């Protein structure tokens, strides 16, 4: 993914994201403990783990929405403190969809395209609606959409500015088989175009088709990390059965 023409001049670019010994606490509760990872351009990294494992916290830290309590995240040569220039190259699809239900799909996409200083927000929204297969419902309020349709709009919102780093937290929630397959294809396209894609998911079958590298989290700690695991479900069950002192960092 080369620098898209609509990126503001101040947008930073990078080809690798490195998380180094990152921990995050909320009060006395430690949500993440000494997590390290590295994701490069043209790679899909999966973050797998049960509920409460720290996946969403890790995504929020990568998105610069949370600061690590200890450790650091580097985006190429840049730190998270780079601010707006860095945020211009990050796209996030959260567990919540970040859409205004009273606005139409087109209005939501135009609004976020405008905030990201996309050169022509109207054309960008039209193209995004077409990719989402929602051209016919473009002027309907998002509140009238099914969960799967909202998810498709939310994905396009996250990608409307051509981000280098794409962060997805449970992106398959609410999608039917066809939509989930379309999303898998879209994420592969993003990878092939040079994006760094990080996916936190529970859906092991879809993850198996998609991931280039996998980080397993348990109780906020890295339980294992491996490239392209075959038989992901079996590996996942093995990793989650291990005692914490057997965990492979």
């Amino acid at each position: 993914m080369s620098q898209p023409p609509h990126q503001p001049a101040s947008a930073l670019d990078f080809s690798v994201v490195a998380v180094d010994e990152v921990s995050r606490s909320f009060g006395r509760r430690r949500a993440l403990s000494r997590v390290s990872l590295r994701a490069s351009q043209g790679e899909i990294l999966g973050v797998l783990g049960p509920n409460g494992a720290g996946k969403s916290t890790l995504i929020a830290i990568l998105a610069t929405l949370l600061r690590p309590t200890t450790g650091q995240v580097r985006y190429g040569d840049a730190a998270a403190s780079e601010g707006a220039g860095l945020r211009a190259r990050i796209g996030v699809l959260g567990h919540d969809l970040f859409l205004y239900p009273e606005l139409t799909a087109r209005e939501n996409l135009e609004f976020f395209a405008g905030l990201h200083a996309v050169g022509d927000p109207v054309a960008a929204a039209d193209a995004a609606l077409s990719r989402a297969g929602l051209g016919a419902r473009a002027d309907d309020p998002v509140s009238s959409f099914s969960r799967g349709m909202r998810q498709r709009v939310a994905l396009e919102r996250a990608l409307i500015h051509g981000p280098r780093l794409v962060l997805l937290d449970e992106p398959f929630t609410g999608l039917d088989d066809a939509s989930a397959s379309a999303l898998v294809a879209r994420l592969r396209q993003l990878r092939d175009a040079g994006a760094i894609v990080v996916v936190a998911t529970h859906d092991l079958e879809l993850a198996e088709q998609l991931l280039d590298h996998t980080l397993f989290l348990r109780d906020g700690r890295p339980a294992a990390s491996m490239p392209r695991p075959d038989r992901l479900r079996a590996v996942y069950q093995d990793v989650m059965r291990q005692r914490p002192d057997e965990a492979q960092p």
Partner: protein
Amino acid sequence: MSTERRGHAAGSPFARSVWLVLRKDLTVEVRSGEIAYTTLFFAASCVLIFAFALVKEGRAPEGGAAGILWIAILFAATLALGRGFERERQSETLRALLLAPVPRPAIYVGKLLGIVALLVAIEAVLLPLVAFLFTARLFAHPFWLAGIVLTCTVGLASVGTLFAAMLVRARSRDMLLPVLLYPIVVPVIIAGVQGTAALLQPTVEIALVRFWLLLLVTFDVVFVVLALWTFEAVMSD
């Protein structure tokens, strides 16, 4: 938001972001009417109840109109501020705003202008209602009245917008907002009440009105500068 619009607003990134956030808030409000209707109903009920209780044989207590006007506006503002940010919390759209590569104080200014616009619309209904029910000569000096009302509204909204944003993830935000807001805006409310009361005197002392107006302008400048300075920090994490 018109679908016929092409391109995005010209100008600096700051001004463009303010305009986008403001236009989005106004579009959502025009479409849902949720905050405007509930706030207006609440404020008008407040004024009506005071009028029934205090106005006897067509005569209102001296200074009552100014006090009741600003009680109604203060309560309406509290309601509007809480609901305005509740909307951003429900779909976590505040996170999406914070993720955008825009100066974060621009988000504050956009939200502030949206709240001010909403309160001005409510005041446009409340002022004639209070003037009628309390037989108050509120519109004898319309420009001075507009100055007092606008500066007092900006003062209330500038502090309230900052606190409402700070509290958006607090579980007891509905209780905490007035607890934090009211002590800080006491000087603004006093200036608003005194300035309005001065305008209702049989012989209006313009120097006195000007004094309260200047005081309100000073509060506004101080509060807005402080809020712009602190917004980025309070919204981080």
